[in-house]
């Protein structure tokens, strides 16, 4: 109480100084700038500067940082007419969309199941399903190249053999490689989505379900009419995050398919294309142009999805 009255007292002298304050920054402001200085340096040095430098580089002849001849939109037109780039974007979308759709559906079902499990089991399942999420993509990729070994020695092919399925090529068969990457991704990210869905499920008001039960709703009706609408924004969030991450795919495809995106270029992704042009072919101008195009694609996707989300929320 005493302190509070003191603080209200302290307001008066600062009020008196008001005209001076307009010109001068207060001590508080100075402290604020000092405290935020590391962040501001970080933003300027490692976000703002690289963004601008990348933009400039994308309009210059490849090689070196700044100080090369301007070439206008030449880099962009090179990228946009490069078949390999479109193949990379197609692959990226293919794997991204498939893993987002399957990932959201599966994890939603999984979260609903875990939510209805007994509390004793709930934490156990949470722990198990989440485990792959802390494992690095490097380890996951190495592990899955063995599990998905293309001959009959591979564990998955062996298991499929029980059902009379002939050994599949998985990562080495161009028609399967992308789906195999999606399967691997699902194993890794299912837990993350599930945990977020579970947190959201617990936030759905219980009385809604109780009211529905009184009206004689089945579990499916409750799920369809209460749970899903209630979780719509979380589902949207998951789709956005999943899409953005999908567009940035690099580590797994680089380890499994190499810099050529083998087999037959099916594992070539947008970022791998950038990496290849920038760091192997040393075509920095082309690589930055490609990265800007990728950035714009991600930005447009994000904005579109957010728009869609806002619209559907108004209904």
């Amino acid at each position, binding site marked *: 109480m005493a*302190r509070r009255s*003191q*603080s209200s007292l*302290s307001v008066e002298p600062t009020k008196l100084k008001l005209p001076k304050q307009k010109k001068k*920054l207060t*001590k*508080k*402001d100075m*402290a*604020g700038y000092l*405290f*935020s200085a*590391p*962040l501001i*340096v*970080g*933003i300027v*040095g*490692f976000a*703002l*500067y*690289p*963004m601008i430098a*990348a933009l400039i*580089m994308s309009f210059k002849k490849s090689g*070196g*940082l700044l100080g090369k001849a301007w070439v206008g939109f030449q880099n962009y037109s090179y990228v946009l007419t490069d078949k390999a780039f479109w193949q990379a974007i197609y692959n990226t979308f293919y794997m991204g969309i498939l893993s987002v759709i399957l990932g959201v559906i599966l994890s939603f079902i999984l979260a609903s*199941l875990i939510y*209805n499990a*007994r509390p004793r089991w709930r934490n156990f*399942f949470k*722990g*198990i*399903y*989440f*485990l792959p999420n*802390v*494992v*690095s*993509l*490097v*380890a996951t990729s*190495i*592990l*899955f190249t*063995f599990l998905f070994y293309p001959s009959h*020695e591979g*564990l998955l092919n*062996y298991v499929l053999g029980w059902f009379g399925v002939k050994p599949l090529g998985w990562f080495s068969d161009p028609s399967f490689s992308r789906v195999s990457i999606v399967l691997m991704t699902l*194993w890794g990210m*299912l837990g993350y989505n599930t945990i*977020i869905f579970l947190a*959201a499920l617990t936030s759905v008001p219980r009385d809604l379900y109780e009211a529905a039960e009184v009206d004689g709703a089945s579990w499916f009706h409750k799920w369809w009419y209460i749970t899903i609408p209630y979780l719509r924004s979380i589902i949207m969030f998951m789709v956005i*995050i999943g899409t*953005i991450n999908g567009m940035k795919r*690099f580590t797994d495809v680089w380890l499994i398919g*190499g810099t050529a995106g083998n087999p037959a270029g099916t594992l070539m992704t947008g970022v791998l294309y950038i990496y290849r042009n920038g760091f192997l072919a040393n075509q*920095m101008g082309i690589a930055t142009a490609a*990265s800007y195009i*990728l950035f714009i694609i991600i930005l447009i996707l994000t904005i579109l999805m957010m728009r869609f989300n806002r619209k559907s929320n108004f209904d």
Partner: protein
Amino acid sequence: MTTTFTEKKVMPKLQKKVKSQKRSKRIGNWILTLILLLGSIVMVIPFIWMAMTSFDWGARLTIPFPPRFWPKEFSTMTYQTAFTNIPMIKYMVNSLIVAVGVILVSLFSALFSGYAISKLKFKGSGIVLVAALSTMMIPFEVTMIPQYLLFDKMHLLDSYWAFYLPALNYAFGTFLAKAFIDQLPGTLREAAIIDGASELKVFLRVYLPLCIPILATMTILQFLAVWNDLLWPLLALQSPAKYTIQLGLAMFTYNQGTPLPSVIMAATTASLIPVIILYLFLQRFIVESIALSGIKQ
């Protein structure tokens, strides 16, 4: 609705119905648990296979057929081979050094700026917050080339400064810290300032101890991110002596012509041990941190 005299007949029926409902619910619960258990097996089998194969000397040259979970020639030779061929310990120490440095820098930056935005509300604090949040929209993959060239120009490539300096911009941490400090009362600061404490002292003495939970969350998130990252180490580090664990492991398998299943599995298993230990002890906390980070975004 129905007349009262049927009540006697209805009651046993109702009881039966409740009983059968209970039973079907119990059966349903069992089926549910069973499905989830089956799914858990699918999730865990890759780990078990990896751990078991890593001890299988018989699988050092080729993947055994038929696949087995129990090592035929149980031996730790696989680990010895892995550790002599790949300087695993060195890589792990390197990763740890990078992780600690990045955590220190990023938490320092995030907490100070988060506090300043939340409690000092200095002129332009809103702009700083918006700027920080909008940098989160920029994928690292877009800025990696200029960043690489920048460090090249500063002659800081192939040094860990290439990791510490970008950690200054931990915008998500700033956001987490700001949201956390928003919940702490501002009167604490005002009172201490009136008592003549400096802003720095107020922050260090009063607020910092209260921020330990959010610092722990950020530490976990950053540790996992740094430990598991590959792309930036791949670009920034050139001399093998400086490789992080992921880069070392990736390079070894990448450049290896022959498969060497059990040796590679041993190396991979070893690379996971720190993370798995962390997960075993802090499982609930880690899951909560990551869920929090997901929801807050």
